[in-house]
């Protein structure tokens, strides 16, 4: 294994990490972020790319951090849920959803950071999605509490908020 440090930017801060000391060749990005760097917002639920709970952004694109080796993120920029502003439109929309008929957008909350990050990346690609497009885009994430209807509403509302703020997620 190479012994030269790897450099990963996480939430705009640069981390220099030494293989052998800070991580192993087999350390996943999810493991590094949670266990070594303390970003516990993302969850490791299946650890095999099936549930989406560990989703983070890598150079702005949603990735499953349990399916990437930490060393693969060398030279890249990672955003975790801790890197989003608390008033981020997507976060706000997930918090606020209580429109009658759709329930809430979260219950136990374990899948929520993953859904939020997937949504952030998705709305960057498709700022005004239809319900069908939302269902397609978010079906890589599992919510066992079953809040899909509330989540879909939250994504629609986040899209409206983004448009109103005239910005990009």
């Amino acid at each position, binding site marked *: 294994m190479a012994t030269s440090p790897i450099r990963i930017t996480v939430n705009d801060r640069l981390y220099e990490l030494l293989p052998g000391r800070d991580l192993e060749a087999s350390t996943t990005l999810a493991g590094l972020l949670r266990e070594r760097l303390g970003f516990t917002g993302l969850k490791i639920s299946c650890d095999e790319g099936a549930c989406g709970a560990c989703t983070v952004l890598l150079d702005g694109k949603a990735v499953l951090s349990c399916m990437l080796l930490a060393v693969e993120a060398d030279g890249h920029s990672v955003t975790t*849920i801790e890197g989003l502003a608390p008033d981020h439109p997507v976060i706000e929309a997930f918090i606020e959803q209580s429109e009658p008929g759709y329930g809430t957008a979260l*219950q136990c*909350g374990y899948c*929520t950071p993953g859904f939020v990050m997937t949504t952030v990346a998705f709305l960057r690609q498709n700022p005004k999605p239809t319900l069908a497009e939302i269902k397609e885009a978010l079906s890589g994430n599992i919510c066992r509490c*079953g809040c899909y209807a509330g989540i879909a509403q939250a994504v629609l509302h986040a899209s409206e908020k983004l448009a109103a703020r005239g910005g990009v997620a």
Partner: protein
Amino acid sequence: MKTPFTQRTPRKHIGQYRPRIDAEEKATGKARYADDLASKLRVPDLVYAKVLRSPYPHARIRSIDTRAALALPGVVGILTYDEPEVASLKVTSAGWTDGVDTVSYETMMWRRYKDRRVLGDYACWVGDEVGAVVAGETEAIAEEALRLLKVDWEVLPFVLESEEAMKPGAPVLHPEIAPDNVMPEDTVGGPHRFVDKGDVDKALAKAPVVVEGTSISHNATQSSLDPWCCVIEWKQGTQVTVWSNSYETDQSRMHISQMLGLPITRVRVVSPYVGGQFGRGDTGDQPFFLFTALLAKKVGRPVKFKHTRRESFHDGRQQATYTARVGAKKDGTIVAMEFKSIGNAGAHADHTMFALKFAPMELTEVALAHVPNVRFEAYGVYTNKMPACMMRGVGNSQTNLILGHMVDLLAEKLGMDPIDVAIKNFGHEWERLPNKSLTEVLHAGAKRIGWKEKRHQPGQGPTFEGTKKRGVGFSFHPGWHAEWQEVRRGEVQVGMTLNPDGTVTLDAPTVETGTGSNTCNVLGCAEALSFLGVTPADIHWVAVIDTNLSGKDCVQTDSAVSFLQSEVMAVAAKEMKQRVLERAARNLKAGIEDLDVAEGRVFFKKKPKEGKTIREMMMAGPLVGITVKLSRPPLAERTGVPFIVTFVEVEVDTATGRTQMLNMAVVNDCGTVMYASGAEAQQIGGQIIGVGEALTEEIIYDKPTGVPLNFNWIDYKIPTMADMPEIDPVLMEVWRGGGEYGACGIGEGTVTCAPRAILNAIYNAIGVRIDQIPVKPEKVLAALGKAGR
């Protein structure tokens, strides 16, 4: 915008549509779960544990050579089955309690079936935790150490299906309990024939119309996203502290205290937020707490034990095969019902008899009371499969699968609408027929799904896109749980502190697993204390439950926490009012009898404009909060139960066999809606489990080896957003329970009716009945005679 429900009794805070109180913490990723509490970063001396799991469905350990594993750098210690502290542990069960009450070793619910050795030498399924648990500096080292254990296994013959296990000569799992693998009769579940009312044989012989049917369910599993996890620190001379996602802190403390022989004061159990529950480990009595604790004692360092996703397939629903006969008069009046079930308990009994006997017994009382002749007979059978324990809708899901089947069969034979058959026959023994709640939920659901317009003769509807047929179906069930059904809880404890600044700290201990009962509690507290001008924003609910600090936690079972603690708050508020007036009398130098409090102000009865706000009055000192703590048993008032119903519309592709969900209407008579958005989230959310069980989820075993093949979420298919249809959640307030609010738990039951409703809808679509879930495409094609080969 969909139409919101209308409250029967207008309330200030109860029943609102609003965000959850924990929404911000959870949506920003700040909410902490057991797995987030400890890593090497936070706890540098932490070690990680991994337990040996049997690779065989039935085997005994002759010996384990640990030398190579111990020699691996980074291995901190190994605890084995033959060490006196392990070997002397009492034989136990993971069915101590259904969570309603805290029980002791002596009073555990299924004490007849103590078949679990903690880290023993005897394995009864592939995955059974046996023999050894190792501690390593990293999880990878601990895993590697497991591979280095030299285990001498005595491999035994095994059996997977209950029908096979009941035959003479079949391998026997627990000879001391069940020499023929059939779990014996016991005092809690009763005899094999546990309900026998009237004369079923005679009534069936005389009945003008008799129908027979079969329903077969499977061992679906809870699949909480948050894997079971604990961190245990054993501090000699002080306390053993368990941070975990147990959602029964009081019961876990009792379990650990009794199994390890420690006084209750020496055990501390802490649970933060829990990432989904659905019945998993309903009992707080899991063996992994015990061997992790003993390992922590042995290595003298805090130990973390987290289940992998594969290991998280540790228990599930009882696979059950139900057969039934129902006899009726020509006008649809049911005269006799006979049910027989054979349930596959898997390797350990746990709560199998809860599903097979306890839940159906309750159903008989609350829904079948007006049928004069009823018989239930059940056999729980040990096999070498994953054990069945508790899963959301325990027993009721399996029973509903046959009940809704028989109603549909009977209605068809009589040429009646099944809605009319249901209304004609079912209700609680304390109520007259027709049951108002059942009638209203059925009519509301029928309207929402378009029952009259969409229903057609089985298989005779129009064809879409050349090969697709549509159909509608429903199933109903008594709701649970009303307050009288929670009497076993003994007492529900609540503490409210009015702080000097007028805010309120609410100690309504319950581990928040996602159900939203924390928001119900805050709304209930605001409602009860509205005379103090308290709003939900003024209330702080304590989210982390710590047995050192909290009262007894009200367990998230039966979905009943949504109202049980609020009912106690409604009573406690009266004492709070008295105490506030006492404080005000001192501060305002007046007699209590001259003062009153309303709308956040203390004032003179005779001069209502003279007075102070609560904050002004309290800040005048002394700056000590007013705390009211109250323990109160649930009310035993005999109120009967409300009903629930699920209507579905499906589309079946007769060319591919695929069933697609088109629409669902989920109707709950709630008594009182405590928190509308949360109740809707439960109604909608429960369908992922119901639809998954009905169509896609199934554990598959390799028959020659007994190895489960799909303990992962790629092959065990949980519905995603793309798989779920439009769901119309309908909240109603028809029935009324006891107490101030008259509510009941609704969340658990929302999963119950979907599988049967879907099976009935598939029959309506294609005109052929399928008796077994999950309905995968191959079953549809086989039913249509298109299976090929």
